[in-house]
């Protein structure tokens, strides 16, 4: 009796007892569908977080900043005052140059920025609010900010302290409202909240995406919203009247470099330079290890829940075994007839074993379908209900549902395995029946 023959026979028998077969499968269906639902959601969350992180800057980015040195023991802590950040505490351009030199193979760029403040620029009836940020070359690329027209802030802008500025498309929309002008090359004047005034020439327009700028107050009317205006970092320092260094830096790791390791080395490097500073030290943080931590947590949660679901699979398997044993008693006469007609013990064994496997596999397939469906439904629900409060920041909440192929294959493999494990004993019992006793069984 061939393999296909066995499958045909099994499918035939399963179809004869449709309801019973379905109830038998139910345990397997519930087990597999829970495993697939959980792994699909876990997998999708991981993917979504990785995508979002990547959108927000990428895994090869390291942030470094100055942090106050906290007292080591509690008594000192009570009298401790957060230190004032002095000019000479800052990270100087020399330090950065030294650092660049020391790690020239591992880093592709060191990006510096200096925040200036908010301001408003008025054009007759029109106005636009801005948030002025001094940046160096590479900041826009590294933050995945998309230049729509014009150019970036370049190294030359920085060294020559140019009054170039890059504004958002939202800025253009409201500042040049009802005016058909090319924004590039236009001179603008920003009145800053602190009383300073900045004269700039628009050299580029970038695409405004709310998500990337942390502007979560979606209730502000679009025209009143502050969008970032980028100017050369040196120009920003001039406005701020600061001559020293920077409070923070961003490092873009070179292609193929280990960002996590580089982050540690960067901390060590700068803390060497700050060893004599009693009040301040250098801290660093990298996306890659952050991503790794989140992934690990998700993995642990996924595995833990999958293990619980796997227990229900075993329970399902026991159900299959129970029904197979009942079915064999019920079909004792059939077994006797088959034996009288020349079925070998092996043929009977393989027939019942195949039946158990086919039941489990069909259950597994149904379970996979339900699990994937559940995953998509949960993704949809998050999107629908999330939209209510997330507004236009939905990008962050849109979960890309991607069922884990590995989980599906492993689940189907386990369905078969459960069929084999829990089907073997009943099948063997059927195979070992004496033909006469089986035939005379009433």
């Amino acid at each position: 009796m061939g393999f296909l023959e066995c499958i045909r026979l099994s499918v035939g028998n399963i179809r004869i007892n449709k309801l019973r077969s379905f109830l038998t499968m139910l345990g397997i269906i519930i087990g597999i569908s829970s495993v697939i639902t959980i792994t699909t959601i876990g997998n999708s969350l991981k993917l979504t977080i990785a995508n979002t992180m990547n959108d927000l800057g990428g895994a090869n980015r390291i942030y470094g900043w100055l942090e106050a040195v906290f007292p080591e023991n509690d008594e000192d802590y009570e009298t401790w005052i957060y230190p004032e950040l002095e000019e000479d505490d800052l990270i100087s351009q020399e330090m950065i140059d030294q650092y660049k030199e020391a790690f020239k193979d591992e880093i592709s760029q060191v990006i510096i920025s200096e925040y200036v403040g908010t301001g408003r620029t008025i054009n007759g009836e029109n106005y636009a609010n801005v948030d002025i940020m001094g940046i160096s070359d590479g900041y826009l690329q590294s933050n995945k900010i998309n230049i729509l027209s014009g150019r970036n802030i370049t190294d030359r802008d920085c060294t020559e302290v140019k009054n170039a500025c890059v504004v958002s498309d939202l800025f253009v929309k409201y500042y040049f409202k009802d005016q058909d002008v090319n924004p590039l090359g236009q001179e603008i004047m920003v009145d800053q909240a602190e009383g300073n005034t900045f004269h700039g020439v628009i050299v580029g327009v970038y695409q405004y995406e709310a998500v990337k700028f942390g502007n979560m107050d979606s209730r502000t009317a679009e025209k009143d919203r502050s969008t970032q205006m980028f100017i050369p970092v040196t120009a920003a320092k001039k406005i701020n009247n600061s001559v020293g260094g920077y409070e923070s830096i961003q490092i873009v790791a070179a292609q193929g470099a280990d960002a996590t390791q580089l982050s540690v080395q960067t901390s060590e490097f700068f803390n060497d330079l700050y060893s004599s500073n009693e009040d301040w030290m250098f801290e660093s943080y990298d996306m890659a290890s952050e991503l790794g931590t989140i992934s690990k947590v998700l993995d642990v949660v996924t595995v833990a829940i999958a293990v619980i679901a796997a227990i229900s699979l075993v329970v399902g398997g026991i159900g299959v075994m129970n029904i197979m044993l009942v079915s064999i008693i019920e079909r004792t006469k059939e077994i006797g007839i088959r034996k009288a007609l020349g079925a070998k013990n092996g043929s009977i064994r393989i027939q019942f074993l195949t039946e158990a496997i086919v039941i489990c596999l069909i259950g597994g397939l149904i379970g996979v379908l339900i699990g994937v469906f559940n995953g998509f439904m949960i993704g949809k629900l998050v999107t629908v209900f999330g939209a209510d409060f997330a507004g236009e920041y939905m990008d962050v909440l849109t979960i890309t549902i991607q069922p884990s192929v590995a989980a599906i294959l492993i689940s189907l493999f386990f369905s078969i395995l459960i069929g084999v494990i829990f089907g073997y004993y009943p099948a063997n019992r059927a195979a070992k029946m004496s033909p006469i006793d089986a035939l005379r069984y009433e």
Partner: protein
Amino acid sequence: MKKTAVQEKTPPASDMMIDMKQIVKRYYIGQPNELQILNEISLQVNEGQFVSIVGESGSGKSTLMNIIGALDRPTSGSYFLEGMDIANMRDVQLSNIRNRRIGFVFQNFYLIPRTSALKNVEIPMMYAGIGRRERRERAEALLETVGMKDRMSHKPNELSGGQNQRVAIARAMSNNPAIILADEPTGALDSKTGHMVMDLFHKLHEEKKKTIILITHSPELAKETERIITLCDGSIEHDTQGGV
């Protein structure tokens, strides 16, 4: 599981189909309730004979049939079927013998329920490893011989007793066996359909020259056969030739 072609009937050295010598069958051996069912039965059946075995219940008919049909092994004694030593065969070999050399017809038909007549007739061929198409063709031809071709897709519960028995006879013939072993084949049928079934056996005997062993407790049916063997308390009481 191996797909070997059906063994064509090998011509026996003599025309002796069944050769049994001093067959003993005991149950519960070594226990206080030890039971001896067959007492040193010796029996020879020639090829092409139509033999009936009669006897009262408990005379050992069924046990003898089980041994002839290779469903059971004798406790002692020798049994050769077409020159093959059945008494000393392993289970797998016995399965093959049952599959290819013996066709069973039972009192209660023993068709597999919820399975069409056609599929029932195909079962022995399936275990013999015959391909699907050939199986179907042969099953249809066999059902035609027993006059059941027009109902081949019916299931046993949709057929009458006589019709079921005819399907069972077609099934018994499916691997072209050396002998047909019929255990009270008309026992569950009324006399009219019983006669129809008996006619079918006679036809098989005359046209296909089959060796047929009919087990019955009805003297009338036995009289239709060529040789009547009467069993009593596990021994052969009479062995009369020429009923017909």
